[in-house]
């Protein structure tokens, strides 16, 4: 985010790289998201079940990772009301071992600008690996 003279100035320019933000999630975050988002699939909470289906450990809900991308874009947009579209593929799981805060780093580039809206290409990484693919958002400028 860019601040000039105390007021928030948003740069809207093709190719502009929006500052990265880091989000921390842990097992408690997964339980809270499961309860709030209504997805109680045990692979997001129970290590034994996750491993029984071939996962290395408990993994975060793909929708939790996407929700964090939504938060990142909302912060830049100034309001959830300005974020008119968001989409992504779930390419790699975010593994969340017990007792660890896992860092997810999100950044974005402005890939299209018009008078009405901008399109962002969002990068979401965990331990240097891209976990979302083709992640895009549209932010209204109106």
């Amino acid at each position, binding site marked *: 985010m860019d601040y000039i003279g105390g007021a928030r100035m948003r740069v809207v320019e093709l190719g502009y790289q929006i500052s990265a933000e880091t*989000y921390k999630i842990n097992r408690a*975050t997964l339980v*809270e*998201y499961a*309860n*709030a*988002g*209504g*997805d109680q699939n045990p692979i997001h909470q129970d290590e034994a079940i996750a491993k029984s289906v071939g996962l290395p450990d408990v993994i975060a809900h*793909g*929708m*939790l990772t*996407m*929700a*964090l991308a*939504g*938060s990142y*874009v*909302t912060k830049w947009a100034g*309001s*959830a*009301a300005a*974020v*008119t*579209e*968001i*989409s*992504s*593929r*779930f390419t790699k799981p975010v593994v969340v071992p017990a007792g660890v805060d896992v860092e997810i780093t999100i950044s974005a580039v402005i890939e299209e600008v018009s008078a009405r809206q901008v399109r962002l290409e969002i990068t979401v990484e965990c331990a240097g690996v891209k976990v979302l693919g*083709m992640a895009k958002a549209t932010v209204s400028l109106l």
Partner: protein
Amino acid sequence: MFNPDAVGKSRKSSSTFKVTQESISNFAHAIGESEVINSPVTYSIMISLGPSQTLLEENGLDWTRVVHGDQKFQNNRPLHAGDEVTCTSTIESYRAVAGNEIVTVRTDLRCGEELAQVQWTTLVVRG
């Protein structure tokens, strides 16, 4: 086996989902957001999940082999406490690729006549 003839089939939720401030706040807090008047941009997944699952199950989806492939939200506006949302889910596409099945379901979320949000969920059924 998913029914390949299900493309175009549609199902309207039998009841409305009433958005509460508590459910918006719980979702916002779970993802570390403090803005709690407008629903977070992906909040409505919690509303569409049930109705879209029902439609997919009616058409033979085997959940034991499903992974979430991709997701899209088109938000005409955020949801707010007091909104009463009805969901209409439609199976938009189905294809079998390299032993996997790929199903896309669209869910229209309406508040009365107003189309507030549309979601697309693509699931991959591993062969």
